[in-house]
C-alpha cells in the first residue's frame, strides 16, 4: 500500500501525514530570494522520475538580510549574563526573587514546557519568525516547540563549519543535493527545499522506508542521481545506507547522526563503508545541539550558547567525573531560552585533553528495533508515532526472545494501541494500561527494550 492510497480501515493511519495537508505557502514565501536556478532545482527534484511521493513542502523563509545573518554563529561572549537577564523577565520566573546566578534558577523539565509553553517564550520575542517544531521526547508526550526560522537556518551553516573543521571542504558542487536528511519510518514529512545561503542548492528530507517509493529500485536511483553531499539522520536511517542497494550509490562528504545513541559498531561500519567523518551529535529539539563526537570517546560540548551541568535527583550539583542527570542551559533559540533544563539523560562531565568540557558515558537516547512476526525489523519511532497518536503519555514496551511483546502504557486508548501494535508487529501481546506516566515506575522508564532488535 502506498502512502498516497490508504485503506480507510488501516489501523495505522496518521492524519497529519496526509500528503500536502500542512503545506500552505507559495514557493516565493518559502524562499524569498529564490532565483531561476533555484526554481529549476526545485522542479527537477520534485518531479524526478524516481522521486518518492513528497508528502510536504516547506522552505527556509529567509529574506536576503536574514540569509546573510544566519551565516555566522551567534556571538558567545557574555551570552550567559544576557541569557539569564532574558530568563528573569520570562513569565515563568517573574515574581521569583533571588535568581541572581545560574545556580539560583530551579531546574525545569519537559513537563513545565508541556504545561505552559508560553511562559518560557519572551514577551518581546519576534513571533513573526515562529514556526512549528515538534518533539516526541523521552517520556512520550508530544511537545510543540516554537522554532525560530533564523535559528533553524543557522543550523545548516553550523553543519558546514563542523565539516570544515574536520578538514573536509564542503561547498556547492554542481547540481548535487547539498544535504539529504534521512528518516526511516512508516510515515514521515518529506520534501525538497533550497538552502538559500548555499548557492540556492537543493536539499531533501527523504524517507528510506519501502512504503515511500514507487518500486524497489527507486530510492537507489534517486540517491544516485541526486548524489547528496552530506547525509544526516538517526542511527536507524543511517544504518539503512548500509543496505546492498544503497551502499555503493551514495558518496557523502560527512554523516551526521543525532536523536538516538549511535552504537560503536554502527559508527565503525559507516566509517568503513563511506570513508568519511561520522559526527555523533547529542541534541535535543528543546536545547539544540549540545555536544558532538567523531570517535567513541566523550562528547565535546559545543562552543555555542550552551552550558551543561550534572545534577542529582534532588537538583544538587554532582561533582565532575561522577554520573548525574544532564541539565542544559541553552541560548540559541530566541523563542525558547532555557535555563537548567533537565534532559532525562545521564552522563559524566569530564575535562578533555585540550581543556574543553566533555560528556562521558552518555546514556538515555534509544535505538531499539522490534522484530515483527514476518521477520521485518520495525524501528521504535514507528511505535512512538502510534502510541502518541492514540494519546499515550508514557510507555514501556518490551519484546522477549520468543517474540512476545509486553506493553505498559500510561493513559491513551488501549484498544487502539493493541490494534496498532498487532498491525506493526503481529506478535502475541500483553497490554497493561495505567493512568499516569509516574505509574510506570520510578525514575525515567526505559521506553523500549527488545531481545530481538
Amino acid at each position: 500500500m502506498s502512502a498516497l492510497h490508504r485503506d480507510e480501515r488501516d489501523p495505522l493511519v496518521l492524519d497529519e501525514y496526509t500528503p500536502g495537508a500542512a503545506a500552505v505557502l507559495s514557493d516565493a514565501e518559502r524562499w524569498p530570494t529564490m532565483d531561476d536556478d533555484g526554481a529549476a532545482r526545485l522542479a527537477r527534484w520534485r518531479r524526478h522520475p524516481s522521486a518518492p511521493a513528497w508528502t510536504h513542502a516547506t522552505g527556509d523563509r529567509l529574506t536576503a538580510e536574514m540569509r546573510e545573518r544566519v551565516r555566522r554563529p551567534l556571538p558567545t561572549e557574555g551570552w550567559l549574563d544576557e541569557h539569564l537577564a532574558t530568563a528573569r523577565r520570562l513569565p515563568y520566573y517573574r515574581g521569583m526573587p533571588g535568581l541572581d546566578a545560574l545556580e539560583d534558577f530551579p531546574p525545569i523539565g519537559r513537563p513545565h514546557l508541556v504545561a505552559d509553553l508560553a511562559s518560557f517564550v519572551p514577551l518581546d520575542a519576534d513571533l513573526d519568525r515562529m514556526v512549528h517544531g515538534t518533539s516526541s521526547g523521552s517520556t512520550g508526550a508530544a511537545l510543540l516547540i516554537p522554532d525560530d526560522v533564523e535559528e533553524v537556518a543557522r543550523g545548516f551553516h553550523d553543519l558546514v563549519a563542523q565539516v570544515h573543521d574536520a578538514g573536509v571542504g564542503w561547498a556547492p558542487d554542481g547540481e548535487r543535493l547539498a544535504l539529504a536528511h534521512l528518516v526511516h519510518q512508516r510515515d514521515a514529512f518529506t520534501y525538497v527545499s533550497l538552502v538559500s545561503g548555499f548557492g540556492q542548492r537543493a536539499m531533501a528530507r527523504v524517507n528510506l522506508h519501502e512504503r515511500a517509493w514507487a518500486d524497489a529500485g527507486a530510492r537507489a536511483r534517486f540517491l544516485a542521481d541526486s548524489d547528496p553531499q552530506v547525509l544526516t539522520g538517526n542511527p536507524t536511517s543511517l544504518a539503512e545506507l548500509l543496505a546492498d542497494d544503497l551502499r555503493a550509490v551514495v558518496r557523502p562528504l560527512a554523516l551526521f547522526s543525532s536523536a538516538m545513541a549511535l552504537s560503536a559498531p554502527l559508527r565503525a561500519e559507516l566509517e568503513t563503508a563511506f570513508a568519511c567523518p561520522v559526527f555523533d551529535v547529542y541534541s535535543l529539539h528543546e536545547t539544540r545541539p549540545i555536544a558532538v563526537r567523531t570517535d567513541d570517546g566523550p562528547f565535546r560540548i559545543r562552543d555555542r550558547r550552551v552550558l551543561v551541568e550534572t545534577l542529582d535527583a534532588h537538583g544538587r550539583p554532582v561533582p565532575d567525573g561522577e554520573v548525574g542527570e544532564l541539565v542544559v542551559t541553552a541560548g540559541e533559540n530566541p523563542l525558547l531560552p532555557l535555563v537548567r533544563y533537565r534532559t532525562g539523560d545521564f552522563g559524566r562531565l569530564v575535562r578533555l585533553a585540550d581543556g574543553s568540557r566533555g560528556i562521558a558515558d552518555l546514556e538515555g537516547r534509544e535505538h531499539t528495533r522490534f522484530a515483527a512476526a514476518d521477520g521485518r525489523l520495525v524501528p521504535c519511532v514507528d511505535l512512538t508515532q502510534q502510541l502518541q497518536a492514540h494519546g499515550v503519555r508514557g510507555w514501556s514496551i518490551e519484546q522477549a526472545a520468543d517474540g512476545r511483546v509486553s506493553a505498559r502504557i500510561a493513559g491513551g486508548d488501549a484498544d487502539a494501541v493493541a490494534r496498532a501494535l498487532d498491525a506493526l508487529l503481529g506478535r502475541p501481546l500483553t497490554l497493561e494500561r495505567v493512568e499516569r506516566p509516574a505509574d510506570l515506575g520510578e525514575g525515567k522508564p526505559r521506553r523500549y527494550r527488545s531481545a530481538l532488535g
Partner: protein
Amino acid sequence: MADIDDLLVAWAERAPAEDQAWRSARPGPPLAAVASRLSSVPRPFLDERVSLPALAGDVLGESLRCLSVAQNARVRLGASVALWLIASEDVVEPFTPALAGGDRAMAVDALALRLAPIVDPLDWIGDDERREEAARTFLLWCGFLPAGESVETARSLLDARDSLRRNAALAEAYAEHRHRSEIARRLSEARAREAAARYTSE
C-alpha cells in the same frame, strides 16, 4: 484577584490584538452620543433577576463569550449595560453610523470581560471619567473611532483612561494572558504549521 484573572484570561482568548483593533477601526458615532446613552440605562437592564442569555438573545440574536462566566455579578451587569447601548438604537434612535456595521458581540464582551471586572458598571453610569472609558472601550471593540478623532488621538485618550493599563499588577498579568493566547493563536495558524526545512534529526 483570582476571579478577575480568570475573566481577563477569557478576554485575552476572545480578543484580537489591540494593535489590530486600532488598525481596523473606522469612523463611528460621536463619543458624547454613546456616553449619554450610558448615563440613562433603564432600570430593567440593571435588574439582577434578568436572564442575561435571554436578554442577549433578544437584543443581539447571537451568543456572547461572557455568558459562560455570567455567574459573576459584575460581568452580568456589564454585559447588560452594553446590551442597552445596542437595544437603545431601537428604543431611542440609531447611532450614526449604526452599531450594526460593527462587531457588537465583541463590544459587549469587552465591557463585560475587560472593563467590568476592574471598574464597577454602576460607575460607568455615575462617574464622568469612567463613563468615557466605557464608551471609548465599547466603540473600539465594536470597530469604531469616536466621530472626528484620528486613531492616534482616540488611542491616547483611551490609554489615559484605561483602568486595566493603570493598574500595574493587573496590567502585567493581563500582558501574560495576551502573550499566551497570542502564541497559541500564532501556532495554530497554517503558515506556522508548515514549519521550516530542517537539516538534522532531533
